[in-house]
């Protein structure tokens, strides 16, 4: 396969990682703990989308392409589930805990197991897929460039671009976005300035849950929907967040694409096969942790 084709695949996979990483980074910086349940939160979103998708099929709506209102319904249903699950977990588990980052970290792993087991119980362990026709590579793109790009890949990258751009404007120019950045930068000073943690923390879970769910739906769209896929992608998302610098939303975006590219382009390294895609990403992550824990876009830690 050509290097450019690998890079294209990397951008697609990177888009999914970006969606997970931005949410995880939000929670890491404002909630102040690494949420090990974030991967399984994505899966919850993916299954939320699946329920809606199957429901549509049941009432006889048969999408002819992935570019369809059915996809929108699938995504929105996934988002709704992601948000509900994230916010409910906050109120039921994390908020009453009222403890330090390490206790939250360990608890979040318990939460991950709960999500995973409930999904597994509800949907079984076998892989599922969304009911959209699988089409081959888009002919015109293949003729022009020789690259295999499917409709699904196009949807994932375009939708991620829209989300990331919207997020940029919200964060940069809205007062809520500024408050979120302030709380992520310095939580104490944000409170001293009069920002209510309730508002930022709730926004963080809504935003984090929605982005995670979207990433989960796209992960399911890109490959298959499996109850255990959350953990596989979790460490890649951590790698992206750490590469970009914890708390830096833009860092998470950059880190997501970088890790996606590293994951898919591993075969370019002589003697290393695609089976080591994840390993290469983890090596990058560990190196960053050791030499520049603030991330490539983050501040030097003091």
């Amino acid at each position, binding site marked *: 396969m050509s290097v450019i084709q690998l890079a294209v695949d990397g951008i697609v996979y990177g888009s999914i990682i970006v969606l997970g990483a931005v949410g995880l980074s939000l929670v890491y910086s404002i909630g102040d*703990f*690494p949420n090990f349940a974030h991967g399984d939160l994505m899966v919850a979103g993916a299954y939320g989308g699946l329920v809606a998708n199957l429901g549509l099929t049941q009432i006889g709506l048969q999408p002819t392409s992935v570019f369809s209102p059915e996809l929108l319904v699938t995504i929105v249903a996934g988002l709704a589930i992601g948000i509900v699950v994230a916010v409910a977990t906050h109120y039921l*588990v994390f908020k*009453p*805990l009222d*403890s330090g*980052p*390490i*206790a939250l*970290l*360990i*608890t979040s*792993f*318990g*939460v*991950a*197991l*709960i999500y*995973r*087991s*409930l999904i*597994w*119980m509800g949907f079984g*362990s076998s892989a599922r897929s969304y009911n959209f026709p699988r089409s081959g590579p888009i002919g015109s793109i293949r003729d022009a460039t020789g690259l295999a790009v499917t409709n699904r890949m196009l949807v994932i990258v375009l939708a991620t671009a829209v989300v990331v751009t919207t997020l940029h404007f919200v964060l940069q120019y809205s007062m809520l976005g500024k408050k979120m950045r302030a709380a992520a930068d310095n939580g104490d000073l944000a409170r001293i300035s009069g920002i209510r943690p309730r508002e930022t923390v709730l926004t963080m879970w809504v935003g984090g849950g929605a982005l995670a769910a979207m990433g989960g739906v796209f992960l399911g769209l890109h490959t298959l929907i499996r109850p255990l896929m959350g*953990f596989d992608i979790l*460490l890649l998302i*951590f*790698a992206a967040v*750490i590469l970009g610098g914890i708390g830096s939303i833009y860092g998470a975006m950059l880190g997501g694409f970088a890790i996606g590219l590293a994951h898919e382009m591993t075969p370019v390294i002589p003697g290393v*096969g695609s*089976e*080591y895609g*994840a*390993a290469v990403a*983890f*090596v990058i*992550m*560990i190196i960053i*942790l*050791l030499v520049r*824990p603030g991330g490539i876009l983050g501040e030097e830690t003091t």
Partner: protein
Amino acid sequence: MNVTIPKTDHELGSTSVVLLGLIVLLGLAILTGALTVSYATYLIALSGMYVLLALGLNVQWGYGGIINFAVVAFWGLGAYVAALATARTSPLGLEWHPLFALVVAIIFSVIAAILVGLPAIRLRADYLAIATLGFSEIFRLLVANETHITAGMAGLAGIPSVLEDLPFDTVTTNLLVVAVAGALVFLFLRRIHRSPWGRVMQIIKADEDLAESLGKNAFSFKMQTFVLGCVIMTIAGVYYAHFIGYVDPTDLDPLETFFVWVAVILGGSGSNRGAVVGAFILVAVLEGTRFLTDFSIFAALSTGPLRLLIVGVLIVLIMRFKPEGLYPPRDELIWPKSQTDTEGQS
């Protein structure tokens, strides 16, 4: 500073009550035919292995405050070195004596622990958690894919059982070996915990800056706890390979790491007897879920997710309602207050 003498008799008393209770339950289960003898001995041997793992993690987390999310990798290192060095099916074709393999596994473990620990121990707790988990996954991927060395996903069968030379049957030997190993590690850890070394470790865990100002090299002490804990985990892995006779890369699932964490935090971080009790309860939970599906309300569920659910709920509940665990360490030097607080319990 006020040094309090732990009430050894009382401690052992309550621990043995819990263990005795579990053993009585097990006995009843055999008598009523719910369990076969061989399954019961398997359970005890398995518990023994988790005791070793929990003790190893307790050294790191409980004594040193070091987060290690690579428990399964150091355990797997032991299991794989043992399997590769002794199994008939090993691609390396060494077929060493298991005791020799054990020594080699420990050496590898020390080297690996130093290589991981040297750069990583200095990291902030959350970074260390993520870094060790990353390391664990890299190890798993290597084992799964370097087929010419590790036999890959096919796994390694034909590992000789523990100390075949002893004049007992396999089951008895298994139990004996893990009981002796567990007891030795337990006594050793208790001894060093109460030694001057253990006191320094407690100060470091409570206040690293204070320890440094007393002229103690916190980093060196933490490295020692990390290596010690990893070696104990590796020993558990070596034992597992000989006990089960087969290993493959699916054994290296990071989930195992979190099972061991449950044992430690349930028992009480920093408490060895807590780690022991935690390990037994963990095995009761992991294996007990098998039988839950016999009851009609759980009949529709398969064991796998039910087990995950129970472990997950257990983690959340412990952290919320009993973060100090069932047996909070009481022989603390630093916090006389916490001493009196836990006085009434257990």
